């Protein structure tokens, strides 16, 4: 898979839309592109305006989630944890997952219902849910 880490500001919106087009469950579920390491710049440019509305979470949120996950699972410092990382693949069992959710609730001042918690499988999912809950809370 192409890795777009979104570390530089100008890449943010592109990485944001690119991640959406990797076929995650979202409101735009009709598009699922498996890029497999190839990049299609023209395709991304075409899709970017369409997906900007339902953008993925801010990189800072994703980073915070990565930190909490690393701490909870006591992962070695050199472990790569990104938005794409699946909790199950990182070695989180059910107790870890619930502890992570609790840690996220405390960190972000939100409350996560069990139904929503069940749908989280990657770090990105968690970050997206957090931002949605923060938005709903402040609305």
């Amino acid at each position, binding site marked *: 898979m192409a890795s777009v880490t979104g570390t530089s500001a100008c890449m943010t919106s592109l990485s944001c839309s690119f991640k959406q087009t990797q076929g995650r469950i979202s409101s735009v579920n009709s598009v699922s592109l498996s890029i497999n390491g190839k990049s299609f710049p023209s395709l991304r440019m075409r899709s970017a305006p369409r997906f900007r509305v339902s953008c993925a979470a801010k990189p800072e949120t994703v980073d915070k989630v990565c930190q909490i996950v690393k701490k909870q699972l006591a992962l070695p410092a050199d*472990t790569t944890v990104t938005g794409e990382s699946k909790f199950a693949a*990182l*070695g989180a069992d*059910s*107790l870890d997952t619930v502890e992570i959710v609790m840690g996220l609730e405390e960190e972000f001042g939100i409350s996560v219902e*069990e139904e929503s918690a069940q749908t989280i499988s990657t770090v990105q999912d968690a970050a997206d849910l957090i931002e949605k809950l923060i938005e709903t809370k402040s609305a």
Partner: protein
Amino acid sequence: MVLVLGAGCCFVKGYVVEHLLHFRLLAKLSQGRMFSFVSKRLSLMMMTKVCCFQRNFSSALPPLVPVKLPSKMETHFWYVLPDEVKSESLLSQYSELLSPREKKNLYHMQGDQFKKSALLARVLVRTTIARYQTNCQVNPRSLKFKKTIYGKPEVDWENGDKWCPPPLHFNISHTSSLVACGVTVNVPIGIDVEEKQRRLKNKILAFAKRYFSPDEVKLLTAISDPEIQRQEFIKLWTLKEAYVKAVGRGFSAAPFNTFTIRARVVKMGGFHHFDTQHSEASEIVVESSDDPENLTRNWQFALLDLAGSHYAAICIEKENSAGGVTQNSNVINMWNCMVEVFCDFFAGEAGVPMRLTVWKTIPFVEDERVSGTGAVVPISGLIKQL
């Protein structure tokens, strides 16, 4: 004769290892461990296995020792200790049993210990289910799995071989140091294992207040010794997990704070934490704040100290409770109701114990029945070890 067959099917690579495995298996058998059970089958195996051998075990693993299905009232519990599985070539042969999707999942896992226990979990479930196919050998590699609409894993028999599939239920759980699989017939099962030394990153009571029921929080709060409190927490967690997994409708269908699990000392009434002096006579019950009473009365629990290192919780549905709907007549329904009322009236009368057999295994290498030994110590729940 096993050796002759084994030698015939061994390939050059790994020849010595495979041969040693055969020797070891035969040695174990002749020592009497499982000999009486298996000896009758061995001759049959010799005949039927000749044709199946090449087909099933292309990597020259010895045949699995078959086991009879648990009866309707029995639970089988199998576990593997990853630290006992040291052979790299055996682990590599284990990997060959996995489906492409399982291999891919494994590839993406991080951490060697975790990866190993994840591999052993798939191997354990595949080989365990394969053992029960006593009419014809099943290649554990050929088993297919699917998920219910709620996400609970089950065997997909459609693509399997030609016989009538057994009404087999299973559930797995694993930590990095123990991998377990529970099996029943006709009734759903859920299991959970947890290291006894497991520590929470969060504070126990804060966690319990967030996720457990008010009665459970009260019980934990009442424990002043922090170490005992931590142990009780872990025991409670495994029981709650086992229940949710047995119900099989996901975490959200039975949120942890909507049901209470506790130990009830039989014949005395009252509620205690799990480590009571009368642990053999304590029954574990679940009460729901949502559902009507008769739903939660259907579940039977066992809590064990396993291998000295883990708590293991098992939850199965009681046989009759599959419902009044399947009963034959109103008279039987009425009788069942009367029996239940009668039992409730004499609150604390002992229910039927869970008949449990436990094996420690290294698939294809060694099976050891450990129920009734020091490896399996009942903590709570009505259990009869076989």
